[in-house]
């Protein structure tokens, strides 16, 4: 498998299908994401964007097809899922911070329990991750004491602390008040500048236009069109894409 993948693809999705019962959500997705690339996935609700993302760390089990992360086919039955998941950071729409732990506790839990680091070492790594998202001074704050934007940045730090090869963002700003979106996007931009590979399901068009290398448009379980942001947003080949872009530009 190794020799066939593009030279520096971190994520390679091949012929991915996913059905829930009789409902086919993904109908054969092929997508390769290169090292350091920022890929935006857009599309109408129900088009399968989130399901695709969730198949990439097997929070959803693909029905068929494969997902190769950094050379490891994670859909193989003998794969050590808990091991590969550390290399795939995931950020959720609703943050999903652990409410019974402070920010540092959230960030260091997997470092201590999965990677087996001593508390001091985990705390040092955790503080470094919180510093990257600009929240070192909130290390001892509990989630309910943080704003939505701060909670999402802690969630990003939680993923970052494990030094992932790729970060998956599932509508990271959709649950945020408009004035808090900027702080999260700022962190994402910094991550991109530091060379982090990212796949983002989001409708933050301005951000996509400014920061994305590629925009992927999904519709009814297939990738209908993909290309540079300028192409997708300004002169898409498909009428459906143009229609969708026009709609969300009016109601972002």
């Amino acid at each position: 498998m190794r020799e066939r993948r593009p030279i520096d693809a971190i994520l390679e999705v091949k012929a991915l299908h996913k059905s829930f019962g009789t409902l086919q959500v993904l109908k054969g997705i092929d997508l390769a994401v290169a090292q350091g690339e920022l890929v935006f996935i857009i599309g109408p609700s129900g088009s399968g964007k989130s399901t695709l993302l969730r198949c990439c760390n097997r929070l959803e089990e693909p029905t068929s097809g494969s997902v190769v992360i950094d050379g490891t086919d994670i859909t193989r039955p003998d794969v050590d899922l808990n091991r590969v998941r550390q290399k795939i950071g995931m950020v959720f729409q609703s943050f999903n911070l652990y409410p019974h732990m402070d920010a540092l506790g959230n960030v260091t839990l997997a470092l201590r329990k999965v990677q087996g680091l001593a508390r001091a070492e985990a705390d040092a790594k955790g503080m470094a991750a919180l510093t990257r998202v600009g929240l070192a001074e909130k290390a001892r704050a509990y989630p309910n004491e943080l704003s939505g934007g701060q909670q999402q940045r802690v969630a990003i730090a939680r993923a970052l602390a494990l030094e992932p090869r790729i970060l998956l963002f599932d509508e990271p700003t959709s649950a945020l008040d408009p004035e808090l979106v900027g702080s999260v996007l700022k962190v994402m931009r910094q991550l991109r500048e530091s060379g982090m590979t990212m796949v983002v399901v989001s409708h933050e068009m301005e951000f996509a236009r400014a920061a994305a290398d590629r925009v992927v448009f999904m519709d009814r379980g297939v990738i209908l069109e993909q290309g540079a942001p300028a192409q997708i947003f300004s002169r898409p080949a498909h009428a459906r894409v143009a229609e969708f872009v026009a709609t969300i530009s009016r109601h972002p």
Partner: protein
Amino acid sequence: MELQRLAFSFFNGEVAARYWLDIVQGMWVTTYLAAAVVVAGLGTGLALAMARSFHFKLGSFFIVVFADAFRALPPLVVIIVLFFAFPYVDLAMSAFTATWLALSLVLAAFAEEIFWAGILSVPKGQTEAARSTGMSRLQTLVYVILPQAVRLTIPPLTNRMIAITKGTALGSVVAVHEIIYYASSGASEAGNPTPLTLGAAAYVALFLPVVILSRWIETRFAWKR
């Protein structure tokens, strides 16, 4: 009103002086029987709820059958069956063991349901977040789900614990030397119900602190999200 006769029957100082030591002995037995029931019942209930959260079909089926059966059965019946029927299948046990086992099984059944409800009440996103960082199912349960679930289960659990541990009184029917055993045998021996009054006082002395403690724990663990 016949206050004097009431006092003679229920608050008879002379009878009380003769029997209070028996009651204190009974308190000791009641205390460690109740403690043993709480430890075994809550431990088993928690273990069953955890096992159920792994969603093995057959395992979950048996857990549900167990929980439903022992929530439906009167504890007294369970004690009597264990003590009087089990010797016929070569599983004889002492009255104390029979009472402990019966009450532990009943508490385990209720505790399993309460813990399970607590586990279900934790949003699915918590599991997803934990699993996405590479934590195993057991780690996720222990470090992320249970700490949140247990807080929600404290009020129903303490109520159930108090109800079941008071059921230690049922041990008197198979002659476990707990409070009620001494109180009722004292009452019939003396021909005066004052030992029962002592017994009641003993229960209040034992359980009132527990009730107050549970109230304190509830307020302490009440939290905002």
